[in-house]
Every structure is written in structure tokens, then in C-alpha cells.
């Protein structure tokens, strides 16, 4: 069994233990850390080493616990799914050692939420004929393959230019409403951009985004609010059970 970490919060304004279950059906507990508190659960390590659909379902449960903190009007610093410690003692010791960083992050993020805007092509469209893998037995298979690669590269470049233009437009739209931006992973045509904004500005944010012109070739999907995952350094939650841990503890 391990101590699984959901989030760290300021203990100010806390109203008792949450009656929640999360990952692996384990009840959520609170670990007191002075002016901070951590929402944790005791789970089998195997339950957070899931894959496939189970992984997705457990990650959704993780987020629901974090979301419950938000629903209570608090600002959680969310850990990523899978953050865990050998036991409560190890968890407390590690998090206490990082208390200054947590305090700074809580000061910076207090009252803020994360919104996500997805830039999605209006039409996916079938691949051009020339982009299909040529018959390897064809006499001109080599030439056609190289042409396919070139066309893909050209399309990717054109998509990137179009997406950059949309991103620039979005920045103009939400300037003054947001106070942070984080671009999603990947260098692809469909992007997720996370914005940080005051909780009370969510409606204003949605209104500011509006819609994209038909000619852009893209549409927007706005999601949130959610905890500020994209604005909390994941290194703050390194637990020693991760090969990339800077601490190497655990």
C-alpha cells in the first residue's frame, strides 16, 4: 500500500474531512502540513500502474477529487495522476520540505482557475491520394513515397501557420481577462491552450473568445473551469517513485 497524493491546499478555510472516494475506490484523507494540507488516499500501488481504459478511468477519478476541492471554493495545487509516496510519513516529510514552493504557488494561483480552449479543424478531410502509401511493388514506388513525404511536410507547415494565426487572434481576444497561458503538448495542428484566469471571470472569458471566422478553417471548443494543472510545476510533486525525480528519494 502507498500514500497517493491528489493535491495540496492552504489549510485556511478548510471545513473538515472530505467525504470522497477517488482512485481505486479509496477514501480521501487529509494530511495536515501546518498551514498547508494534502489530500491523499491509501491505495495499492498496482492500482495506479494501470494501463488502457483503466488508466483513463482512474485519471478521471483523480481529477474528480481535485475538482471537489475547487467546488468548495478552494484553490488546489493538483498533483498529476500517479503521484505517490511509500507512506504518510514520507509524504509529509517531502511536502513539508517543499512548503515554500507550495506557498508561493498558492499565492500566485489563489482564486484562479484553468480554462482550456481547443483549436479544432472544421473538417478533417480525407488524405489526398498522393499521401497514401504507394504500392511497394510499383515501378515508381520510391519517387511516389518521397513525394508523399514532401506533401505531408508542406501540409504540416501550412497547418502550423494557420494555427499560429489563430493563436495570435485568441491572445488578442482574451488579453485583459487571463493572466497566464500554457500551450499543450505537441506541435500539431490541433492544439489545446490552457489559460489562467480569475474564477469570477469565466463567463467573461467565454464571451471574449467568441467564435472564429468561417475562413479560419478552425473552430474552438472551450472547456473548464478546472484546477490549474498547467500552471503548477510538476516537479513540485515528484515523489521519489519516478525515475525522473530530482530528489531521488523514496
Amino acid at each position, binding site marked *: 500500500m502507498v500514500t497517493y497524493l491528489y493535491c495540496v491546499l492552504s489549510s485556511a478555510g478548510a471545513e473538515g474531512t472530505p*467525504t*470522497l*472516494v*477517488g482512485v481505486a475506490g479509496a*477514501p480521501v484523507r487529509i494530511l495536515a502540513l501546518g498551514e498547508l494540507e494534502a489530500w491523499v488516499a491509501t491505495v495499492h500501488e498496482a492500482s*495506479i*500502474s*494501470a494501463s*488502457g*481504459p*483503466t*488508466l*483513463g*478511468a482512474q*485519471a*478521471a*477519478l*483523480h*481529477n*474528480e*477529487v481535485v*475538482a*471537489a476541492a475547487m467546488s468548495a471554493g478552494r484553490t488546489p495545487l*493538483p498533483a*498529476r*495522476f*500517479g*503521484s*505517490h509516496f511509500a507512506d504518510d510519513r514520507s509524504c509529509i516529510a517531502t511536502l513539508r520540505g517543499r512548503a515554500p514552493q507550495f506557498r508561493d504557488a498558492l499565492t500566485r494561483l489563489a482564486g484562479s482557475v484553468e480554462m*482550456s480552449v*481547443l483549436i*479544432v479543424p472544421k473538417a*478533417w*478531410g*480525407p*488524405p*489526398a491520394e498522393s*499521401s497514401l502509401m504507394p504500392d511497394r511493388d510499383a515501378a515508381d514506388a520510391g519517387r511516389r513515397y518521397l513525394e508523399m513525404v514532401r*506533401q*505531408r511536410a508542406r*501540409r*504540416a507547415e501550412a497547418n502550423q501557420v494557420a494555427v499560429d494565426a489563430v493563436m495570435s487572434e485568441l491572445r488578442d481576444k482574451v488579453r485583459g481577462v487571463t493572466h497566464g497561458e500554457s500551450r*499543450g*503538448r*505537441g506541435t*500539431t*495542428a*490541433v*492544439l*489545446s491552450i*490552457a489559460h489562467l484566469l480569475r474564477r469570477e471571470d469565466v463567463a467573461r472569458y467565454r464571451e471574449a473568445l467568441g467564435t472564429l471566422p468561417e475562413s479560419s478553417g478552425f473552430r474552438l*471548443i472551450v*472547456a473548464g473551469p*478546472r484546477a490549474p*494543472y*498547467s500552471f503548477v510545476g*510538476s516537479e513540485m510533486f515528484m*515523489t521519489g*517513485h*519516478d525515475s525522473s525525480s530530482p530528489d531521488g528519494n523514496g
Partner: protein
Amino acid sequence: MKPNEDISLDDEQLVLGDLLNTVLDKGVVISGQVTISIADIDLVMLDLRLLLSSVQTALERQGFRTDGDVSLLRAELSGS
């Protein structure tokens, strides 16, 4: 099958995929990522696409309510 039926993703799935990607990003259990290429566009975000319907099913099987705004479940313990 309609053209491109296999790549039609509704907004709900995209939002859920984005959320899961965020929650899982840099998580300690992620060992790999499949980039799916659709219409010559690499959609990193959609690497969880194949999970989505299964996630919904798994949650529903556990008795959790699912709805469109990805507020998937409120798991308050009854009677506690």
C-alpha cells in the same frame, strides 16, 4: 461506413481527451504515447481517443454518472 466515420470525434470526447491528457501529463505511470495521424495531421491530443469510450463505459459500470460537461462523477460516500 461513411467517409471518415472512424475519425469523427464529438466535442465531448475531445474535451475529455484534453482533460485526461492534462491530468496524465508528466504523471509517473505514463510509459508511452501513441500519436495518431488523421488526414495527415498528427493529433497528439488524441492519443487517448481509443480510451475514451472505454473510460465512459468503465465509469458507468462502476455506477458513476457521466455527463457531457466532463463532470464525470461525484463520489461522495453515502452515509458518511
